[in-house]
């Protein structure tokens, strides 16, 4: 029961940290562009403002439009709750293994795309179409990459995957490197960052995620934005905790958790800097260059899996 209680606390921590990561990335990006930038608390203020504001809706919208923000938010949150953030002693990781996490993210995406099509505007449909297109190419790469990890650890449970990493002496597996590279590319595509999508654009013809939530306002928009921030944190946590798990607590003890928290913040901050730098130096690519980008991810993931089943299993 204590473990479930901790899982609840950790999932709340996800909610609390998600806007901070986005604020941090914005801040670093602003500094890199010689601007002062908004304070890193700005995303919290935005969310607060949006929750307080009145929601407006097109009269062509159906009930699904109103339900979708809740479903998207809850599904993303549940997926995040199953990824170890501070401790690997996590019953939610057993409840939802990595395939279920992919499924929950799929559920969120399904409703996000439907919500985009609901009002019946051209932009919404365009965003939905592009989102499904990008995710169709990203999903196999993502599953292949996590399968490489799962096959190595003989478990699809992410907590076990992380523990397996901690147990063995840290030696470099070629399959892990490939999987890491693939997962980074997938994460960029799935969270809608440059060069696949630009989260700060409202230029009609290039937007993907923003096009789908264009019609939202008030609390609905707040939930959608928060879900997107959660998704970024979710992928960041997946990357840092699976590939650099050192420091994560293996049981729920206050000293270990404190240590884990400090290390996690450092790791996430560094990852945020890396993301800000890459977004500053890269330009957004054309939509039809995205398949090449994601095929590279799939290729890397398959190479990782192949090198695992051929090189590493037998020996």
């Amino acid at each position, binding site marked *: 029961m204590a473990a479930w209680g901790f899982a609840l606390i950790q999932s709340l921590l996800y909610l609390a940290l998600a806007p901070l990561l986005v604020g941090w990335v914005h801040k670093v990006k602003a500094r890199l562009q010689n601007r002062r930038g908004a304070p890193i608390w700005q995303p919290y203020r935005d969310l607060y403002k949006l929750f307080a504001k009145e929601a407006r809706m097109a009269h062509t919208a159906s009930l699904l439009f109103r339900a979708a923000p809740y479903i998207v938010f809850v599904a993303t949150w549940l997926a995040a709750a199953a990824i170890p953030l501070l401790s690997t002693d996590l019953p939610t990781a057993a409840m939802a293994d990595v395939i*279920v996490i992919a499924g929950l993210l799929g559920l969120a995406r399904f409703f996000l795309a439907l919500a985009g099509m609901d009002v019946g505007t051209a932009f919404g449909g365009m965003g939905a179409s592009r989102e499904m297109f990008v995710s169709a190419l990203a999903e196999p790469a993502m599953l292949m990459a996590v399968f490489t990890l799962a096959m190595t650890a003989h478990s699809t449970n992410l907590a076990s995957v992380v523990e397996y990493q901690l147990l063995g002496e840290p030696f470099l597996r070629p399959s892990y490197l490939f999987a890491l590279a693939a997962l980074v590319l997938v994460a960029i595509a799935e969270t809608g960052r440059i060069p696949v999508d630009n989260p700060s654009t409202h230029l009609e013809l290039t937007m993907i995620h923003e096009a789908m939530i264009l019609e939202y306002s008030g609390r609905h928009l707040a939930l959608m934005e928060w879900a997107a921030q959660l998704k970024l944190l979710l992928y960041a946590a997946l990357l840092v905790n699976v590939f650099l798990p050192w420091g994560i607590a293996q049981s729920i003890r206050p000293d270990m958790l404190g240590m884990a928290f400090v290390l996690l913040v450092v790791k996430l901050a560094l990852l945020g800097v890396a993301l800000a730098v890459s977004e500053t130096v890269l330009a957004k690519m054309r939509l039809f260059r995205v398949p090449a980008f994601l095929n590279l991810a799939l290729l890397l993931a398959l190479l990782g899996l192949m090198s695992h089943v051929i090189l590493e299993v037998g020996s």
Partner: protein
Amino acid sequence: MSITLALQLAEGAIGLSLLSALVSFFPATIRRRVAMPLFTLSGLVALAAGLVALINGGVATAQLPLGLPWLPWQVRMDVLSGFFLSIIGVVSFAVGIYAPGYVRGFEGGKDSLRVLGGFTGLFLAGMMLVVLADDAFMFMVAWELMSLSSYFLVAWHHDSAANRRAAFLYLLMAHIGGLSILLGFGVLASFGGGFTFEAMRGAPLSFGWASVAFVLAFIGFGMKAGLVPLHAWLPEAHPVAPSHISALMSGVMLKVAVYGFIRFVFDLIGTVHWQWGVAVLIVGSLSAIIGVLLALMQNDLKRLLAYSSVENLGIIFIGLGLALLFLAEGHPLIATFAFVAALYHCINHALFKGLLFLGAGAILHSANERDLEKMGGLLRRMPWTGFFFLVGSISIAALPPFNGFVSEWLSFQAALQAWQLEGGVLRSIVPIVASLLALTGALVAATFVKVYGVAFLGQARSRAVRRARRVPLSMRAGQGILAFLCLLLGVLPTFFIDLINAVPREMLGQGLSQVSAHGWLWLTPISQQTASYGAPLVAMILFVALVLGLWLVGRGARRVRLGDAWDCGYAPPTPSMQYTGTAFVQPIRRIFGLLFQISDGVETQQDGRRRYYLQVVDRAWGLLYAPIARWVEWSSRQVVRLQSGSIRTYLGWTLATLLLLLWLVV
């Protein structure tokens, strides 16, 4: 309760369906009141029979007072038959509830409702007889009964030439497939020394002959199941039939083909080889990926659903291929795992494809429209159908917490055990198949976002759709039952896998003993450490969090203000400014373009207006069917040369044939 009871119930179900066929020819008042209830009852009894067989296990046999003097028809009930009988039963039950409302729309039309009812009953009886048959003779008779009666159902709207052509194509392909199955049975019968399945099981087969029998069966059953490249008839034939029949054909008849394959390969041949597993895996993955891409390109809702059946049968055969591969390589536990995944997907596909076809039928019933590009906004006009269709779409897109996800999860878990195989080639084939399965899953999600977004959301694109009315309660109830089962099988997988376990226990010698070892909350197919999925918990947390979220965020009297769509501040959008289905799939069409035969461009119409046209054709026509058709025509022309018109030449040919036959026989 015993297995004999199951057999008796099954015989009763067959009797009821035949009776329903007979009653259909009575005067209209009796037909309307009695025929469909009998059909529904038959489905219910079949479901009961199947469940009794699954719970009890064991085997019961009986002889029917029919058949040839030296070969009376044998029926046999075991868990495999019981499993497929319950699939047949549950979908028929829902269809039976749905059908009266739907068929009323045809009342007073040109096509005879007697014929429809009569062949529907015969069709159901045929399918049930196939899964009960215990000798090749009865199997083939029942198989033909199923094929022929469904031919008449496909040809029911026979006044359009396209429908007649589709029906003929269906008949032709069904018979080529039937011939292949017959030859396959022939191989087994000649080695086993008899036409009963009992004799065939004991047939001593060399690898070569076993492979010949396997290939024949794979072609025959694969053709019925619509596997690529033999699938092209399926999207022609299934959509043409009335929608409740489409639901039966796609949801149930394809499963009967899967039954035939399992019975033939896993039971009758018995010893399997890894090469077969690889062949099935390749064909299965091709079907999955090509099926879903073609489904994505369709704008006719029922055709789209039919192509998606090709994809789902591909997924089922991927599971069976994995089972064959692991079984041949000496890993029975993992083989069981893949086998259970395939069986679970059989039920799932029957449920959600039945549901989706019934939904398509409801749209057809109230708006008389099959073209997605003319739909839109139906969720507001038909809220219940819209809700059930959404459940079907989520289920088929393999998203938690619905049923499609469970079988996808099981398939992935089975594929993840590939490291236990010997040899790098086999070990790497399985992950590649898994990546294709992942791609398929994502494309299915895109397909059903398109279908649901274009048909049910947005604004109506045509007058009839704008005025669509709700369908009668009975039609909604039929869909509701299937939708509820989709959720139930997604939330409580442990119960159902425990039930299905009887099948591999009998066919492969063991079941998945660990599935519910940690309680009904946890689905743990191999062990808790390897993989677990707490489906009820996921569903419960999703539900609770949703309710909490709605209460916390949306509480109070904070109403939503309505206005025009924002749309970046342009003029309020009109229905024709919405994204169309064709536009939705354009990016995917562009990158997978090589797989289709695409012709598009802008043409000038007679009134001087310009119009964009686009045609996406299945490459199977050009690559496989057209050459075969040309070859058949060419060889028939060669035969025509015999027809000289002179009686002396004909007599000469007759004499030559006679001599040849005498030489052959004596």
